[in-house]
């Protein structure tokens, strides 16, 4: 169903398509550990039965309508303190892919993709560390493309490329385009142009420079997102002018409605 990519250097040269599987990340991890997958290999499925969001939260998707895939990467050039750059690059690559079709695409810290205020995709990265060196990374990507009915999502705060554009997409044609955009940002990172990745990631952060209300330690607090720290913490300017950094579990997004 999916042909290997012709326009990339190494992303998607090998594509493993599984009509259905438990989790593309788990399959990719198993294969890469057995030495069966090289840098840039892709595992893609029509139906993932045990997909994961952040540790334990599930990511449900309709069969064959969306992108559910994992990319194997070996970012051995990144030090342990630079890991967040990988997260930033992937989010930015997906954003750049979506930007060909829609506007108002935002990266919701740390690495979810939003169109306006609705979630369109997410990223889950699993690294295997040996000491302080990354042996390999498995980058799981879920991106809503053709799904039109999200009645099964309780929050309703989701969308797809189809809902935003009115078009339907041929996944096999779109995959090389997505992988090309991911690779472009990744190559910048590999070439040491990490500062440009940080700057662009910041430009597309949802809520940047806007006064919004966040839940911090159970209290509603008004703050303005200033950017992220080198390790990926969210930098928020509070009402008293103080800038504080928050870890992912310390701050919760509050939606206006």
């Amino acid at each position, binding site marked *: 169903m999916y042909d290997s990519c012709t326009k990339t250097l190494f992303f998607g040269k090998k594509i493993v398509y599984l009509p259905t599987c438990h989790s593309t990340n788990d399959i990719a991890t198993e294969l890469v550990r057995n030495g069966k997958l090289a840098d840039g290999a892709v595992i893609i499925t029509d139906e993932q039965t045990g997909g994961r969001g952040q*540790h334990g939260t599930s990511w449900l998707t309709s069969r064959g309508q969306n992108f559910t895939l994992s990319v194997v990467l070996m970012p051995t050039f990144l030090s342990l303190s630079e890991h967040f750059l990988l997260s930033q690059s992937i989010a930015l690559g997906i954003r750049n892919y979506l930007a060909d079709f829609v506007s108002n695409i935002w990266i919701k810290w740390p690495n979810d993709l939003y169109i306006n205020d609705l979630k369109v995709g997410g990223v889950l990265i699993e*690294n*295997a*560390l040996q000491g302080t060196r990354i042996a390999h990374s498995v980058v799981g990507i879920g991106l809503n493309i053709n799904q039109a009915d999200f009645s099964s999502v309780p929050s309703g705060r989701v969308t797809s490329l189809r809902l935003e554009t009115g078009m339907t997409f041929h996944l096999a044609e779109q995959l090389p385009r997505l992988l090309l955009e991911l690779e472009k940002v990744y190559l910048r990172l590999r070439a040491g142009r990490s500062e440009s990745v940080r700057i662009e990631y910041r430009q597309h952060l949802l809520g940047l420079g806007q006064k919004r209300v966040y839940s911090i330690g159970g209290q509603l607090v008004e703050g303005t997102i200033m950017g992220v720290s080198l390790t*990926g913490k969210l930098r928020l300017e509070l009402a008293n002018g103080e800038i504080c950094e928050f870890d992912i579990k310390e701050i919760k997004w509050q939606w206006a409605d």
Partner: protein
Amino acid sequence: METKEIQKLIDFIAQSGLDEVNIETSELKIKVKRNATPTNAAPVAASVASAPAPVLAVPAAPTPAPAPAAAAPAESATNYITVKSPMIGTFYRASSPEAPTLVEVGDEIKPGKPVCIIEAMKLFNEIESEVSGRIVKVLVENATPVEFDQPLFLVEPI
């Protein structure tokens, strides 16, 4: 000298770390000697789970609580390898809540064997062992925060 005073004196000597004390006054002559039998066990290592030592054989600890005080140094005194966290994050013993734990106490591990997951900023880092041995103790609760360099596992080399 009253019994109470003698008791106090023995307690004092027990906590002093001295092996033998001889006191002589005009009224009495008292000689207190530590129980000689456990001297072979002096390197505390082998006595992790042993019964509390006889009162007078208490090691030179300032507190009068012999058993718990002895347990901690006992472990570190052995040749266990400590596997430490390479980063700040949240410690998980399995790759997902429904997955089996990566290692249990008693499991043998080798370099490359995944032992835990540490999550930081939605990056899930599988920590692979760099050592060979057998897991003796898991030092951190599942799903709790860990600091850089915090000990995670004790491993007995084999």
